[in-house]
């Protein structure tokens, strides 16, 4: 028999309430509850509905971390409600917890949001195998274990939206595809059976969708309940663009490549040189701030730059270890 003991703690929940059909503004309702060490966040959502207010609304289905329906935000942190243990949340944030929908501006009713933007973007990357299938195949289409490995964790996504609505760029730029869609794009780009290759990548390379607008904050990797690590997949898509020769010259691609040139020349980065290489004539817009920085001793001209010691080593390594072309 297990000797595990169940403990309880008092927690004050501040819960976002809103009904788009009736309310002009959202409001927060307080619920004081005894929480047991066995419970997950979804249990609390259930108890609010069953014990306190039957009109309280949220999405749920499988309760096993596979349907992706129940993601909400706890104290601003994207969380899959059926997976996150209450004890961990209390340890992290204390005994005052705020439940909010994944995106307040998309709230429809309480925890339920309109996820239209998520699905539109998901759809736009063509999230399926594109392939000329022989209707009368003579044998199976074999995929080796090594080829299957290439998908990495990208295949584990349950489309819960936790990363999408944790991404600061999604919040600002409506056209940005977001981490979930990019990770899904990688999943099919990495699939040997898929023939879309350049077509899908070209679509991602469009400036509007913003594969290059990722701010590299790692929020997506941190909140994913399935460890998909979307930012890692975004990096891999960047590498594919160069590898497949699809990357065209723009400020973002020149910025990535510029580091190599600068390192080959000086070891350390020539900051001004990198901006010039990336922006080209566009550098003029940085002149006002640059002048103020110069006055404050924040700009070192290229001729005064202290290069890395043993620069010959760096030059040699850049030559021998480069694997990409642009």
């Amino acid at each position: 028999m297990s000797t595990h003991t169940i403990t309880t703690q008092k927690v004050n929940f501040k819960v976002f309430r809103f009904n788009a059909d009736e309310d002009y503004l959202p409001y927060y309702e307080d619920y004081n509850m005894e929480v047991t060490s066995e419970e997950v966040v979804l249990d609390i959502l259930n108890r609010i509905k069953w014990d306190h207010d039957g009109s309280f609304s949220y999405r749920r289905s499988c309760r096993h971390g596979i349907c992706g329906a129940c993601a909400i935000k706890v104290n601003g942190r994207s969380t899959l409600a059926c997976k996150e243990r209450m004890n961990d949340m209390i340890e992290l944030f204390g005994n005052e917890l705020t439940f909010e929908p994944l995106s307040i501006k998309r709230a429809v009713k309480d925890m339920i949001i309109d996820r239209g933007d998520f699905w539109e973007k998901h759809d736009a990357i063509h999230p399926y195998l594109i392939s000329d299938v022989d209707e009368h195949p003579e044998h199976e289409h074999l995929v080796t274990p090594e080829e299957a490995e290439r998908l990495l964790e990208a295949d584990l996504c349950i489309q819960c939206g936790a990363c999408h609505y944790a991404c600061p760029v999604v919040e600002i730029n409506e056209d940005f595809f977001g981490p979930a869609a990019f990770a899904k794009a990688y999943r099919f780009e990495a699939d040997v059976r898929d023939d879309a290759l350049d077509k899908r990548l070209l679509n991602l390379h469009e400036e509007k969708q913003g594969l290059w607008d990722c701010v590299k904050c790692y929020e997506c990797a941190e909140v994913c309940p399935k460890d998909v690590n979307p930012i890692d997949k975004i990096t891999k898509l960047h590498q594919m663009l160069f590898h497949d020769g699809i990357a065209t010259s723009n400020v973002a691609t020149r910025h990535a490549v510029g580091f190599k040139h600068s390192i080959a020349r000086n070891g350390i980065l020539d900051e001004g040189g990198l901006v010039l290489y990336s922006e080209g004539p566009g550098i003029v817009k940085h002149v006002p701030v640059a002048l103020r920085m110069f006055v404050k001793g924040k700009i070192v001209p290229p001729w005064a730059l202290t290069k890395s010691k043993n620069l010959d080593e760096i030059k040699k390594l850049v030559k021998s270890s480069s694997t990409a072309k642009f």
Partner: protein
Amino acid sequence: MKKLKYALFTGCTAKQSTPEQYMSTYAVANKLGIELVELTEASCCGASHLQDYDDFLSLVLNARNIAYAEKHDLTMVTICNTCQLNTAMTKHRLDNEHGLKEKVNEKLKEVGLEYKGTSNVVHFLYAIIDDFGLDKIKEMVVTPLSQFNIAPFYGCHNIRPSELQNESHKTAENPHNPTSLDDLIVACGGVSVNYKEKNKCCGFHVELQAPRTASILTGNAIAGAMDGNADWMVTPCPLCHLKLDTQTHHASVAIGREVKLPVLHMQQMLGLALGCTKEQLGLKHHLTKVDFI
């Protein structure tokens, strides 16, 4: 206590656009009696962009930097969040991905170097907290910052991905509710401001390719600190500092509200509390005037 000694990877920013960070790092190290051996051979870490183009080259260059710290048999200390991320990520991959270390060492051998995996890579903030200790800092404070509300701005690459970052230091940090910088503020005698942008992104890495996004993120961060009644902000990352200190005009325009606060490097704040002079901390190099001293 045994004298602390580290291999210092300054990164590129401290040598160019944030000279005050370089100065204050040494000023604080002197006060604390920490010896720093500067890795003048180090190259740029690639700043999280080089690997978008050439992953292997990025690994080789970062492995070379760590190899120099190993030659001194010292822990490598970084003073830039992005240097920390790239270097620690390289170390993690070389130590864990099958066959990668051998592949990288094949290249390093050409220049007579080898990556062994014997040196830890840790940001100066955590080196101070883990190895020196906040209690000892408290005892050494001569000018407590007690009249100031100070807003900590953590910077993404010191706290995320948490699994990687928590490998590099002993003090556990949760990226959803980080405390290390708050603790340092309190140790310096200040009051730490709690605001929701403190662990968010400043936008630095897309300043050229997505300037609007970058400016809004910077604006939101400063606005959050202002609304939290902060007198000034403090950050362990020179890249965040560049955004928050030099881009206030673009940030204000982007969010439609005048935002401006003095921003100090973590070393400058600590230096003030420990009695370093304004000159030692390079306060004159800021664009947003540090007018409270």
